[in-house]
């Protein structure tokens, strides 16, 4: 019997078309727009000015606080402008636009392909390097990684959990990374273990990726303390609370963090970025992005420089099919439709999915009959049918009492609802309002 999390969950069709497509390096774009707010926390402070020459890997925007992240240039060239640019948030936000000239890297970056297995850095150095490299959670949440690794006083981590679940349908970037960069990943995990001071790491992978499970189990024998665990396929197993429950059967208390129960969760993409940052001195300026869709001619996995327009990726995957009606940044469950395909790829872009017209329209809404399918689907044990009513009636204090802030916006409720109610939309609105209330209370 394979492990999984206990409460709720759904089974959307997998549609992993690009699972057997090796990672290709996307040709350099003509121009990149690098937003200064690609992470959760304060936007980075811009360090360059219009007309400046920059190199690949050069720091162009500095972390503006503890919960913030450095941003590095992903290309070499000239800064064309520092103006707001439409990004995947749907809004114009400050970004650094660079015209690409050649491909000149910072000389400090080790570009050799050899695996560097020996770890000389101590915990503090590793965390410092991760912060300097601007690494954020690459699973999509983009929470600055160094913050997660800085365990608050009085708390102790005893296990590191590595998220290789990739429970979102369509996406395959983590899957490919595990298959192609297994050893680098293992060294990255060991770096994270040392940074946290733990001697145990568990990699959770869903059972729909048997090749990755087999390969990583094989090579994990060479590294001490790392074990690989196959998990039953169920969305949203990649949510950190669900993964912890599935792997070590502990529950994060409501409003708490995984560290409260001694666990720290990092994505496989993050672990790989940590390897590159610490062992190869390479900051985070490129990532693997899945470009896929039912009618897309060539679904692919690309290694993409941050700031590349999404339209470049789609062109490389065979171009936009005629019947396209929606392009989603992220997974189909939690991702967000972009308003223009010129938006740049950011650190949080795990996939670009092109949907045909037939699949992109919402179905007509009907009325709630209290069938409670949403209740059984919710992995956090909330009551979405109740929350939407409260949100529509602006009963935000009651929503707080109903623990709306525990919602991680996985969308399982909206997916299951037979009446096609916009459950998640209203719950998200409620979360925003509840957060406002809490902030006002503090002041």
């Amino acid at each position, binding site marked *: 019997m394979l492990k999984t999390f206990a409460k709720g969950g759904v089974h959307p069709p997998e549609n992993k078309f690009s699972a057997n497509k090796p990672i290709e390096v996307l040709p350099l774009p003509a121009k990149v727009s690098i937003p200064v707010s690609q992470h959760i926390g304060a936007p980075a402070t811009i360090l360059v000015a219009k007309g400046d020459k920059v190199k690949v890997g050069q720091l162009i925007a500095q972390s503006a606080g503890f919960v913030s992240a450095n941003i590095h240039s992903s290309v070499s060239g000239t800064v064309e402008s520092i103006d707001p640019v439409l990004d995947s948030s*749907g809004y114009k936000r400050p970004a650094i636009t660079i015209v690409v000239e050649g491909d000149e890297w910072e000389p400090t970056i080790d570009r050799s392909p050899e695996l560097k297995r020996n770890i000389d850095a101590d915990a503090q150095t590793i965390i410092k390097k991760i912060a300097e490299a601007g690494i954020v959670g690459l699973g999509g949440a983009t929470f600055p990684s160094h913050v997660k690794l800085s365990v608050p006083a009085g708390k102790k981590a005893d296990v590191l959990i590595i998220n290789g679940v990739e429970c979102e349908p369509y996406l395959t970037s983590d899957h490919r990374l595990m298959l192609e960069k297994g050893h680098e990943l293992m060294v990255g995990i060991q770096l994270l273990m040392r940074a946290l001071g733990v001697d145990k790491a568990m990699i959770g992978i869903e059972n729909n990726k048997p090749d990755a499970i087999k390969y990583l189990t094989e090579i994990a024998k060479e590294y001490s303390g790392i074990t690989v665990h196959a998990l039953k396929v169920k969305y949203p197993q990649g949510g950190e609370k669900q993964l912890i429950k599935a792997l070590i059967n502990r529950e994060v208390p409501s409003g708490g963090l995984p560290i409260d129960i001694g666990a720290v969760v990092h994505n496989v993409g993050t672990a790989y970025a940590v390897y590159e940052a610490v062992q190869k001195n390479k900051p985070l300026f490129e990532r693997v992005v899945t470009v896929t869709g039912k009618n897309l001619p060539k679904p692919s996995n690309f290694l993409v420089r941050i700031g590349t327009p999404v339209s470049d990726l789609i062109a490389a995957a065979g171009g936009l099919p005629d019947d396209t009606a929606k392009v989603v940044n992220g997974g189909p469950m939690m991702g*967000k439709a972009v*308003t223009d395909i010129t938006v740049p790829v950011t650190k949080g872009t795990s996939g670009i999915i092109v949907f045909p017209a037939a699949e992109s329209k919402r179905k007509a809404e009907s009325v709630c009959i209290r069938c409670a399918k949403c209740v059984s689907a919710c992995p956090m044990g909330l009551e979405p049918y109740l929350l939407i009513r409260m949100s529509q009636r602006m009963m935000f204090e009651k929503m707080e009492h109903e623990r709306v802030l525990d919602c991680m916006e996985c969308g399982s409720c909206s997916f299951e609802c037979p009446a096609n109610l*916009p459950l998640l939309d209203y719950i998200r609105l409620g979360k925003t309002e509840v957060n406002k209330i809490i902030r006002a209370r503090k002041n």
Partner: protein
Amino acid sequence: MNSIIITAILVLSLLGVALAVVLYLVAQRFKVIEDPRIDLVEAVLPGANCGGCGYPGCRGFAEAFVKTDDIGSMFCPVGGNDTMAKAAEVIGQTAEAKDPMIAVVRCSGSPEYRKRVVEYDGASSCKLATALYSGDTGCQYGCLGLGDCVAVCKFDAIHIDPVTLLPVVDEEKCTACGACVKACPKFIIELRKKGPKGKRIYVSCINKDKGGPARKACQVACIGCGKCVKVCPHEAITLENNLAYIDYNKCKLCRKCVEECPTGAILEINFPPRKPKVEGQTESVENN
């Protein structure tokens, strides 16, 4: 038979009298002493309970009104000056007359001027749409047309025009309670002075982008050129963040800015039609 009925009547009457006495004594013992003027003030208020005054309903307003030292700081937008005068009379004071206000929608971006570039398919709520993206047009400041303002209006005074897809305020019905102002997540609606005979001039745009992008997104956007600021003889117009704003307290309704605006972003409401341009004719003569 008769005796049963009589006994029953007697018992119930006695019970009634005894309990009435108890109730009377309790009522005397736990009497809540309330300013009698509260009821009087509440009686003259409109009773809409809209909250436009900032108090929880008309009763809340009345309670605060009899206590306050400065009645000038309180105003019932629905009842207006008449109601305020009556309410002030109840507590033996006089209220200063205030200019009547009206809600003004500061966006003229109908589909004709502002091209739709995105199709929104979610729930019909401006608040939800704002959380998702900047809007279905190139202008991230403009009206979404999903009607949050219509939903909150208690006076049926604001409606979405089916052609322009923009909210239109009914001048007769609008009480300037400000509910729509608070409901609009884009901060497009503003309460402005209604003006003499409803005449008013305002910049019908809140786009803070530079001229180029603003004009590209919408033909009737304020491009921040500053021509209106220069032409205004009363220094009523200020330009900030590429956007002109007319101070309704300084504006003397001369309409010079309306003529000057190159994009037609400044609107004049309830003015008689202009006379044919005499200057224009002389100019064309000169050109010849």
